């Protein structure tokens, strides 16, 4: 029954973030002529998520992913504000909170991720917020004014970007991180140290090795501060909790699909039900260069999976996969990262860290497995290619900015 799609088919996509919208657009690009229903549980049209943290207080924080004409021109039946509450795999339909059932021939789960909750006393106070959606961003913006004391719980990318975005607006930001350094899970020690210095130099407080025990209320119920486990306390008017994300895989789990902190998908981005695909943050998959199935939280990964899934649905050849990559902007540092940093066994620095323009190449067995570039797009692009080609490199030439990156590979 799960043959290639045709003009009489109906594809239902649950989730209208980057992944879901990419699947819809890609289906039309690839020539699919049947119905596309795109269900989003948030109000309004799909939007770019990165600016929520990167330019929280800037003018460009609300950027639609596509103009509204896109959905009509491409015959994509976008239904915003629709929550899907269940999947009936036997009858091939989804149940929505308000609109009854919608039948599908092919279902795509693009449900994304949700903020990992911090379960400590006081986390339900008014001044304690998270940042996942445009609504969250609006709420956080409304709480910030010059002089506001903001505590960011969690030194991950979202936390660092928010602290960097608000500091120039006279907001006193302090980052509290449980691990002994910022970005402990995702960046190298060298990059963490560089960014920590940049944040401190911008007047942002950084406390690593500090764990939150409770959010403490004032007598009127507003937030007074954050109590740390070591007994210290940080005064705060607003606290942003950004301690990572959990796959939003509840729908899939309830429907009996194989999940493991993420919907498990194969090389075609298909779940263990041949009629159901999944893409984006909600999925876990094998990736080139990784040592185990991973859950990537990134737009490039979601759009790559969208192309892979659509090719499989239509019986086309599987597109080539890319080295996973990610970007961030904070305090004048344009960061571009590719590969898996934790697999590296030695690090080569190219460029001068004092100039804020350099790249960290992480090597294993003499081959580059990851690159972290700071204001250094050329090193990043070359690094991606060198990771993909997996050729042994000459460490000395790699470290020498006078040697072109085309000449760092060891000639066999």
């Amino acid at each position, binding site marked *: 029954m799960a043959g290639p799609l045709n003009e009489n088919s109906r594809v239902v996509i649950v989730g209208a973030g980057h992944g879901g919208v990419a699947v819809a657009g890609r289906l039309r690009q690839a020539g699919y002529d049947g119905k596309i229903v795109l269900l989003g549980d948030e109000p309004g049209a799909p939007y*770019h998520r990165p600016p929520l943290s990167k330019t929280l207080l800037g003018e460009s924080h609300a950027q639609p992913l*596509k103009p509204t004409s*896109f959905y009509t*021109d491409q015959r994509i039946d976008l239904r915003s504000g629709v929550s899907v509450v269940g999947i009936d795999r036997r009858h091939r339909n989804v149940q929505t909170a308000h609109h009854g059932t919608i039948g599908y021939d092919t279902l795509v789960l693009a449900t994304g991720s949700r903020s990992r909750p911090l379960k400590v006393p006081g986390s339900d106070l008014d001044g304690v917020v998270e940042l996942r959606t445009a609504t969250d961003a609006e709420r956080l913006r409304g709480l910030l004014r010059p002089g506001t004391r903001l505590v960011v719980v969690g030194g991950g990318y979202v936390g660092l970007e928010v602290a960097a975005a608000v500091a120039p607006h006279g907001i006193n930001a302090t980052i509290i991180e449980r691990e002994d350094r910022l970005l402990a899970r995702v960046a190298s020690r060298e990059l963490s140290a560089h960014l920590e210095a940049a944040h401190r130099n911008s007047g942002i407080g950084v406390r690593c090795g500090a764990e939150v025990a409770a959010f403490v209320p004032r007598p009127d119920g507003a937030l007074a501060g954050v109590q740390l486990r070591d007994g210290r306390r940080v005064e705060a008017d607003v606290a942003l909790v950004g301690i990572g994300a959990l796959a939003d895989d509840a729908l899939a789990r309830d429907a009996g699909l194989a999940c493991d902190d993420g919907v498990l998908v194969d090389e075609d981005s298909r779940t263990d039900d041949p009629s159901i695909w999944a893409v984006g943050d909600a999925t876990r998959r094998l990736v080139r260069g990784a040592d185990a199935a991973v859950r990537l939280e990134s737009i490039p990964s979601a759009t790559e999976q969208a192309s892979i899934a659509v090719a499989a649905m239509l019986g086309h050849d599987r597109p080539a996969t890319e080295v996973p990559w990610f*970007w961030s902007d904070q305090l004048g540092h344009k960061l*571009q990262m590719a590969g898996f940093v934790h697999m590296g066994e030695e690090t080569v620095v190219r460029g001068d860290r004092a100039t804020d323009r350099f790249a960290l190449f992480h090597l294993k067995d003499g081959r580059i497995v990851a690159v972290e570039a700071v204001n*250094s*797009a050329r090193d990043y692009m*070359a690094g991606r290619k060198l990771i993909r080609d997996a050729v042994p490199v000459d460490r000395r030439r790699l470290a020498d900015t006078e040697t072109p990156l085309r000449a760092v590979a060891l000639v066999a």
Partner: protein
Amino acid sequence: MPTINFIDADGVVTSAQGASGNTVMDIAVAQNVPGIVAECGGSCSCATCHVHLDPEWAPRVPEPDPEETDLLEFLEGADERSRLSCQLVISDELDGITVHVASN
């Protein structure tokens, strides 16, 4: 409004109008032109909006800035007429421009 012509990897031509101040990438995204993924939304981070300028138009388009040049140097399939369409701002001078979408 200026008109932009996209020729995709299969030779299919898409022509669309775009307001001055928008970028060629904005128009490609609105028209769902295959090959323009534009993952970063136009912040010159991802190099997934690669186009080749039509030879006739190449001399008439302002030079790329160093950030764009850096992204282009190691981009697969890039040549001297390569540009990132997020950095091509539409103006009356570019009315009728033709770009070839890079095959990825």
